[in-house]
């Protein structure tokens, strides 16, 4: 016993830290990469508040401004109707999720710029742990950002049931995961912060506008119909809206649902589409992280 404690106190070189990566190592890596991001997010609480300003601004300006010119009953079905403000309420939740997920995952670019990414990439863990950990970190931040907006429901005149909230959170998470995986894939190739602006302007903003967050995706010009159906965010925005507004529309909100060839997609299928998309993005990210010069 006494000899063992002496060896522990002054370990000779090579005594510990020689475990091969393996599955346990990958899981450990995922956990710690995720934990660091969540810890930093939690420390940066002012940013959480600031990030809420933009969705609320949309809600107020579009909801009240555009809403009043569109009239009291904007969309409906099954014997009920919702106002424009109520219609875009799930849209801005999706928006908060979109920005937080992409932004959170793209912190990899910052890590690269400030050197910390090297510490992660030289560690004896599989690179897939880096991609998955970062994607889950971004997704966690996005779920928190999106869920905070649920407290606005009474102001928006939207009612929830326990059941609808329990159903909603997994769908918010799936959207968040798919988008943060996209962010990780983009960041895995990005060498500088300049690229970040380009991604925001030419990818994230169009994805937001085409997702059905601000207007219904039915009856659009053909070219736009195609673009909206290619936008992964559409498949996350739609279930979120149908779940949130479902309680306000007695006959359910499927009449608002996303259609392909006039068929309303089941929300389970939409979730599957997002999961496949997210997995593909993670695959790209892992390949990029594994590449060495």
């Amino acid at each position, binding site marked *: 016993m006494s000899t063992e404690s002496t060896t522990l106190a002054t370990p000779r070189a*090579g005594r510990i*830290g020689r475990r091969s990566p393996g599955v346990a190592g990958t899981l450990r890596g995922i956990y710690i990469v995720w934990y660091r991001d969540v810890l930093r997010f939690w420390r940066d609480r002012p940013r959480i508040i600031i990030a809420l300003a933009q969705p609320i601004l949309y809600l107020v300006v579009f909801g009240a401004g555009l809403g009043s010119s569109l009239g009291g009953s904007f969309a409906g079905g099954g014997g009920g109707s919702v106002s424009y403000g109520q219609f875009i309420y799930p849209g801005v939740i999706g928006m908060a999720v979109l920005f937080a997920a992409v932004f959170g995952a793209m912190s990899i670019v910052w890590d690269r710029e400030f050197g910390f990414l090297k510490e992660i990439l030289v560690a004896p863990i599989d690179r897939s742990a880096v991609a998955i950990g970062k994607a889950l970190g971004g997704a966690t931040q996005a779920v928190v950002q999106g869920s905070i907006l649920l407290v606005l429901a009474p102001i928006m005149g939207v009612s929830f049931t326990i059941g609808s909230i329990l159903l909603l959170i997994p769908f918010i998470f799936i959207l968040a995961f798919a988008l943060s995986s996209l962010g990780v894939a983009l960041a895995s190739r990005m060498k500088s912060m300049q690229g970040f602006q380009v991604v925001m302007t030419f990818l994230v903003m169009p994805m937001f506008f085409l997702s059905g967050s601000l207007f219904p995706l039915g009856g659009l010009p053909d070219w736009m119909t195609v673009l909206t159906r290619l936008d992964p965010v559409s498949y996350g925005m739609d279930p979120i809206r149908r779940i949130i507004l479902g309680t306000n529309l007695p006959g359910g909100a499927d009449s608002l649902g996303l259609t392909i060839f006039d068929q309303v997609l089941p929300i389970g299928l939409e979730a599957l589409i997002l999961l496949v998309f997210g997995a593909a993005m993670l695959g790209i990210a892992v390949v990029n992280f594994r590449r060495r010069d």
Partner: protein
Amino acid sequence: MTDTDLVITARGLTKRYGELEAVRGIDLAVHRGEIFGFLGPNGAGKSTTISMLCTLLTVTDGSASVAGFDVERNPDDVRASIGLVFQDPSLDGQLSARENLEFHAFIYGVPADQRAQRIAEVLEMVELSDRAGSMVMTFSGGMRRRLEIARGMLHTPEVLFLDEPTIGLDPQTRRHIWTYLRQLRADQGVTLFMTTHYMDEAEECDRIAVIDGGRIVALGTPDELKALVGGDVVTIATNDNVRAAGEISARFGVEPTTADDTLRVEVPDAAGFVPRLIKETSVEITSVSFRRPSLDDVFLKLTGHAIREEGAAAGDKMRLMGRAWGGRR
């Protein structure tokens, strides 16, 4: 020394980027517990070599093994066996010193029951125990470097690689860091492999490989390398260097080299040479100085050019600015 004592070996190690050959066939054999220095100017191929040994870059040609593992075939095993202190900062400024170490302990698989103790030990080693809870962004450059060395040792690696470990630090901090490094080797028997372009730093190493243009041009202990310079170095300033050079060459049989308006000669015994020089040359000598050869002289002799300190100093300044930025994110 048997082969099992070799911790790092390389044979014909080569790195090419298209046409550019950054490292041109390097052979190395570093023994366990050795402090091995890689000395050369910026751009000589030092960092490229260290990156290949650490599996951060692929090997174009040749082979290398670290801690008994081939860097191309078993990169994960190599990574688990080494610690790294990068040339540029790689700490998370928004985490505390302890949190940076916890991250490292976790990702390197230090067993849960040893983590707290190991972290306390390495913090103690670099005298940062009292700052363990402070955010790294509040740390000075020297403190960050110490924390990085502590982090590199956290998982008790067999080899600690240090890429320009004291670049951009003031002389006092550099001496301080060397104290830790020597202590590390004495206490834990770890092998230290470092790159540097500081001559005084290279003097601290057991053996040095002088690298220039992607090749090792000399390898040996600092004394062995200095012995390559023929004895003492005498620097002479005269009114007429050309004539003086001719006379010195004719009378003493040594060829002076010209540098910065002065003549340099290498002689076995400067104390006896200088009086004779003054007596036997017709040119007026305005100043004479002599000293034991330094590694600067070795480098100049081997490569025909000096390690440009001015250029390096500018690089240091850039790095320091980079560090300041890193702390401000």
